[in-house]
């Protein structure tokens, strides 16, 4: 099995980080994984996205053109990628910034997460990305929640390790949404 995902949003929303967590989590489960970043044409600010591939065999192209999973943290990202998500795929989008309900791509599960509001509930509006990731994990089951939680320690720099509990709460909050 090969899972191909895209995490996209504005610079500063932490989409690169959740992509890395996905990949790292996959590796901790013994999978072959790649993570690949891509920045918009503007050198500063603007949009950014990353491709993540998780597979039981060596990964070929690290660039995901037709994902089966998408986390879209803002409107432009959702617009750009929703059309290429494969049937059977999952889209988690940031309902805090994307108010209009997007048109439903055929055969794709579309899941809204009000990341800002939920993050604020947890007490820090910076962890909206984690809420979105948690929801995505809950829906796609690509990687286990525990593996991603373990990955936090590897991916976050030492000086931010005190934030790990907060991030875990956010991940779980997102996951919980999908159990309902």
């Amino acid at each position, binding site marked *: 099995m090969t899972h191909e995902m895209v995490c996209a949003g504005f610079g500063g929303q932490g989409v690169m980080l959740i992509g890395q967590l996905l990949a790292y989590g996959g590796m901790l489960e013994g999978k072959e994984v790649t993570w690949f970043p891509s920045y918009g044409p503007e*050198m500063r*600010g603007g949009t950014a996205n990353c491709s993540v591939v998780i597979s039981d065999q060596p990964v070929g192209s690290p660039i995901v053109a037709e994902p089966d999973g998408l986390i879209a943290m803002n409107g432009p990202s959702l617009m750009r990628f929703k059309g290429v998500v494969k049937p059977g795929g999952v889209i988690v989008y940031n309902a805090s910034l994307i108010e209009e309900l997007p048109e439903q791509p055929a055969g794709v599960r579309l899941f809204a997460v009000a990341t800002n509001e939920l993050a604020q509930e947890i007490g820090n509006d910076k962890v909206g990305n984690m809420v979105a990731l948690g929801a995505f994990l809950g829906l796609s089951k690509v990687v286990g929640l525990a593996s991603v939680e373990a990955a936090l320690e590897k991916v976050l720099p030492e000086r931010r390790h005190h934030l790990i509990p907060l991030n875990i709460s956010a991940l779980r909050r997102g996951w919980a949404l999908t159990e309902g």
Partner: protein
Amino acid sequence: MKKVFAYPRALTKKRTHYCPGCTHGIIHRLVAEAIDDLGIQERTIGIAPVGCAVLAYEYFDVDFQEAAHGRAPAVATGIKRVHPESIVFSYQGDGDLASIGMAEIIHAATRGEKITVIFVNNTVYGMTGGQMAPTTLPGQKTTTSPYGRDTATVGYPIRVCELLSTLDGPSYLARVSVHDPAHIKKAGQAIRQAFAMQVAGKGFSLVEVLSSCPTNWGMTPTQALTQVKEKLIPYYPLGVFRMTEEVAGDDA
């Protein structure tokens, strides 16, 4: 009511790609105002550097050529020799001018090449993500001096105006800052003077502008300007380092 501060004609209306609060934008405007003032827009040719100002040609409404990293003075020389009546200026960062392009700037200066150089000293390589520059202050942390610039192993910052002032070719050399409105006005005058020198047919002119890089310094724009004032100016004293002869240069 009269418009007392207007958008310069020599700038296009294109939004810049610079980070919020980056003083490259101020310096662009001062250059454009000098071009407007001297009425030379139709005969000015600019040279864009490789650095954050790589897209300068999109912001100035004059002919432009993109130089290879550090080679703007050579490109400017080629252009000026073909069109001696044109006004040629290069716009260069500190990595561009004082590191890879050191030979080119010194030789253009000593040749007295009749060009104007706007030298933006922000003490880092902005475009490539904040590496150490020849002008990085002692102790300053950058991505390639992660433990702070250690003068014992990587040496001392270069003061470009002082260096060039030992040469006979330059007609005008000045260091200015853009950290507050008063200094911005003075900087504008210096830039205008540098262009006026060229209009008057004098030799090489250069203005070094102490500039900020909030992004790579990890500061807010306002903090970054305070840094310019408190840390940069003491190391890089402001002033005129060469002035062969004041010229009015109006031909508008």
